[in-house]
């Protein structure tokens, strides 16, 4: 399992990155999740695709972290550097980073699974333990918003408003 985790680490880091709001949070999440995976390796059932199991473990760890927070979630965009290549920025990277950081993590992770990992909606739904309809809706909203974002600044402004309207939970501060 250790070797599998090492081989998968770039993908795991990318996955943790779309859930986190900062590089530090990403690394903390990834470290904690990998630790848990090794400690609970017996939970892995042969036959299950390892990468999906690992993603689901990280996602579960992220949810657990949210539930255990003592302080309210402070709304705000994720760090741009999470999604922006540090070396050799190419055309379009920044607009993608700006777009992605403006989304709530729940939607970023769906976009990653569907467009980055190539999962079907159904597989993404299973992995995230989320209803299929929710996944389909998040993928649709995300792609539509990104399409609008690519159309130009005006569309981008609209997208920001759309995101806040469609995802009020991002602004919600738990009691």
């Amino acid at each position, binding site marked *: 399992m250790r070797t599998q*985790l090492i081989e998968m680490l770039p993908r795991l880091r990318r996955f943790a990155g779309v859930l986190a709001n900062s590089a530090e949070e990403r690394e*903390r999440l990834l*470290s904690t999740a990998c*630790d848990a995976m090794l400690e609970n390796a017996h939970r892995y059932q042969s036959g299950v695709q390892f990468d999906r199991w690992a993603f689901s473990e990280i996602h579960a760890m992220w949810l657990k972290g949210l539930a255990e927070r003592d302080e309210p979630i402070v709304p705000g965009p994720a760090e741009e550097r999470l999604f922006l290549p540090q070396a050799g920025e190419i055309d379009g*990277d920044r607009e993608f980073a700006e777009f992605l950081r403006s989304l709530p993590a729940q939607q970023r992770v769906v976009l990653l699974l569907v467009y*980055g990992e190539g999962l079907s909606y159904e597989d993404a739904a299973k992995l995230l333990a989320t209803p299929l309809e929710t996944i*389909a809706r998040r993928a649709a909203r995300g792609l539509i918003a990104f399409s609008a974002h690519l159309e130009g600044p005006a569309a981008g402004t609209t997208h920001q408003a759309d995101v806040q309207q469609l995802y009020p939970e991002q602004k919600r501060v738990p009691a």
Partner: protein
Amino acid sequence: MSELSDELLVAYVDGQLARDQSTAVKGVVEFDDVSNKRVAGLRRANARLEEAFEAMLREHRDEEDEVEEQPAEVEPDVAPAAIAGQSALAVFLSNHGALVLAGGAFAVLLLGVGAGYLINTGGTVQVTQPVAAPNKPQAPAWQKEIALTQGMFGREALEVSLESQANPDLVRFQLASVIGPSLALPDLEPEGLRFMRGQILRSSGEPIAQISYLPEQGPPIALYAKADSNGQTDLGSLSQGDVRTRAWLHEGIAYVLAAALSEPEMDALAEKIKGVIASQ
């Protein structure tokens, strides 16, 4: 406004519809300019998202490649408290830093004779380093690999081997031709340690001699030796699980004693071996 919902169009673009659904949508899109343009825009966005996520992945892969190329000297201190007491296979750290043992220990992992551990730190992958002994210098990376390897080195590996070598002088000659002419192969029979074999392993691309001994009972004890290139006199020591190390430098050869012994036993045995080597 398209008659088809955005959600349906996205599912169509994403290839998530069943064949008959997809055929139906395709039929509408072909004859509806609004839908057609919408689908074209969504396809561009789809392709761009895939590219962007792939770029993110390349970024992370590049980070790790860069880290693996870093010399061992850049390794940071570990946080011993963070790993002390944890199970050997579950040591992860979250402190910042660069690669520790990634190249060498990962190779050891691949060979199936090592026991490296993942660490994730500040954008890099690490293989954990064992706990350094308190108040002692940080041990070099190759020494930690030795401790990791020793942990996987069972008694059976020697007992069933056909390569046990009966002539220590010949073994020393062969090892010295690789490690260096001053390499010593100490006779530890007076200490109750029977010489079993010598072999050459590799750590971070450099040869390391492993000289193995068997006590009357218990796991094997090994003395590792490699040519020392940097003249570091105090090589520190460490413990990894049950395995402890003692290291020293003698005539340009760095020696590491690795064994599952107590701290006092390690100290005593290391001193005796130093004496034997010095007298040869």
